[in-house]
């Protein structure tokens, strides 16, 4: 019964959606509203106004920076939620982890991972710092750092990796994305504009490009570090759940 109702609902929804698609502007039409209204200004002026050749970086950090501030709050919120539900891993050395996710890895695998992880992190740093020119940016870089730590954890186990990135290091950095955004936002106000103004009206016009570029890089680094730490903390918290065994020191 319930199944039939839900299938009927799905069928109705599918018909509705297809009806919309059949009436939408044709894809790639240069005359469609999405093409003619806001976009031309972004494409024309983004480089001069945000000093980021990658228009997307310009939009997410500058034009729609407030959205991105919300976005980093969302991942912080997810972290707070996961920690509220599962709890953080214990501090100190008296706990060992009997994690099942740890593969019995051979020396070859261990050496390979030890060798590649620094390069992955190097790549992610490049992604973070180069975000305004090439594809990528703070969040992608952070996710890549998180992924590299995931590889490390699957091979060496949680104990090893939580020694490399201890809680003391992660705790202050988890909120760094939100804090950087807030700082940049307030600096924009001090500089005479509104919240999240990068080109401060109070300073000389010739200095503005440099300020915008440096603030952009600052925000990218903040997002990258914050994102990476949040991912690592979420992962550690999920792996450690129910698997902590107290060991007499």
């Amino acid at each position, binding site marked *: 019964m319930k199944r039939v109702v839900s299938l009927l609902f799905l069928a109705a929804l599918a018909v509705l959606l297809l009806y919309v698609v059949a009436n939408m502007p044709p894809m790639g039409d240069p005359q469609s*509203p999405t093409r003619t209204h806001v976009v031309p200004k972004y494409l024309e002026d983004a480089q001069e106004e945000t000093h980021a050749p990658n228009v997307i970086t310009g939009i997410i950090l500058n034009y729609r920076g407030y959205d991105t501030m919300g976005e980093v709050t969302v991942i912080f919120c997810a972290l707070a939620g996961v920690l509220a539900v599962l709890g953080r891993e214990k501090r100190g050395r008296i706990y060992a982890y009997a994690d099942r996710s740890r593969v019995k890895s051979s020396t070859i695998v261990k050496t390979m991972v030890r060798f590649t992880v620094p390069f992955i992190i190097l790549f992610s740093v490049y992604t973070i710092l180069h975000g305004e020119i090439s594809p990528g940016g703070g969040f992608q870089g952070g996710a890549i750092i998180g992924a590299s730590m995931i590889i490390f954890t699957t091979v060496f186990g949680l104990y090893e990796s939580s020694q490399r990135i201890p809680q003391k290091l992660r705790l202050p950095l988890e909120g760094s994305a*939100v804090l950087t955004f807030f700082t940049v936002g307030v600096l924009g*106000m001090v500089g005479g504009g*509104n*919240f999240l103004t990068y080109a401060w009206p109070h300073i000389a016009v010739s200095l503005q490009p440099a300020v915008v570029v440096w603030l952009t890089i600052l925000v990218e680094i903040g997002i990258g570090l914050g994102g990476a730490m949040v991912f690592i903390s979420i992962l550690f918290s999920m792996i450690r759940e129910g698997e902590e065994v107290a060991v007499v020191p």
Partner: protein
Amino acid sequence: MGAYRHFPIFMITIPLVGAVLLPFLGYLRQKWVPWAAAIPLVSSTILGSLLMGRMPAGGYLSYHMGNWDPPFGIEIRVDYVGLFLMLIVCGIALLALFFSRLYIFKEVSGGRLTAYYVLFLLLSGAMLGFVATGDIFNLFVFMEILALSSYALVAIAGNRNAVRAAFKYLLMGAPSSIIVLLAIGFLYSATGTLNMADLSARVAESGYTEVLMVAFILFVIGFGVKAALFPLHMWLPDAHSIAPSPISAILSGLLVEVSAFAVLRITFSVFTAGATNLVGGTLDAVSVFAAAAVLYGGIMAILQKDLKMMIAYSTISHVGYIFLGITAFTAEGVAGAMYHMLDHGLAKACLFLCAGSFIYVKGYRRIEDLKGAWRQMPWTCFAFALASISVIGIPPTAGFISKWYLVYGNFSRDRWPYALILLLGSILAAVYCLRVIYYMFFQPGKEGAWETVSKDAPSSMLAPIWILSAGTLFFGLFSSLLIPSLLRAAKFLL
């Protein structure tokens, strides 16, 4: 305006940043966390009250994020109604926070204390941002903060029921967020903009009426889940009754209202400015569902044995009231819906906090256990009675004023069946509320269930309860403070 224009953004960001800073304090001195958590909310409340005095009547405050002009940058748009709702959010959240300080040890273990307050601040900040934003995608972002923190807060007790209720909530809430995202996509494809003010102009002249119509339907479905509109309400009774009581108060008294407010804004400030024909059919369907919600919520509330469950079902019924007000499409109806958001927020928060106070003192959750409760807990019981009167809609309270405008708004557009259903809803509310009151005051308690010496909840818990219930009385007696400006705002929307 000078520095005042910066106030809304600080009202939103200070709780969010406070939430980020709180873990440090939790790491160093956990004892101070409950007090420190109040600081951001207090400052938001102060900023909001200062701004309220400066608000131009009938005007609005538009704040351009990053100095980019609206269609290009994000705009925060606070009008009189929005600021009013933001102040309600701040106030009720603050009272629930103070209530939590002692109460929370009953339901949340010490290790999760910091996480509780962090999520609490995120929830409050997100609600403020959700109300204030003038950009439709930004609305989605804040909705997600709102949703994520509320899932986690429902689950925070960590026991079987809490986790199950939270997961049920998530399984309905997450798809609804995606549906809203899809609706935003449709809207964007037909208009090419995301700013609400700009949208309302472009919706009117857009040629893609089919796309816009379906986008509106999807918006109603998406926000309908969040606001627990009748056929989409399944998550609400569990989530609201099982969450810790201060969180129930926030979810029931604020979150539902804020989602209904989002529907109101989408309906009036995006779609109907010159495009009423687009949304007419959908709104008719919504009013049928809302009427069903009034009856269903009322009847289910009568059948409940658990006090918090009863209050939760009553919320479903009241969401129906709010939607009937919105769909009435008259200034009185809309103003009534807005006023109902206020008084339902106050009354429901008060009822849930009272239920929490019974749990705190005696651990009683069932309605039957409350027989003779007033002898031990007179203050809680009287506050409960006052809030119930507002829920029913009996004259000196705010509930009466809003219900009067709702009924009037529906009558004046020849929607008399809906007006009758509103009255019937009041009768149902009287049945379920008066039953509890009857048990509390006029039934002898079970042997040993209550101590004869009065040992009510501690005064730091009674104070929030009484402020809320006095609020329902205050806004009932002095409705002329707000009603004219709400009517003017509603006329402006139509």
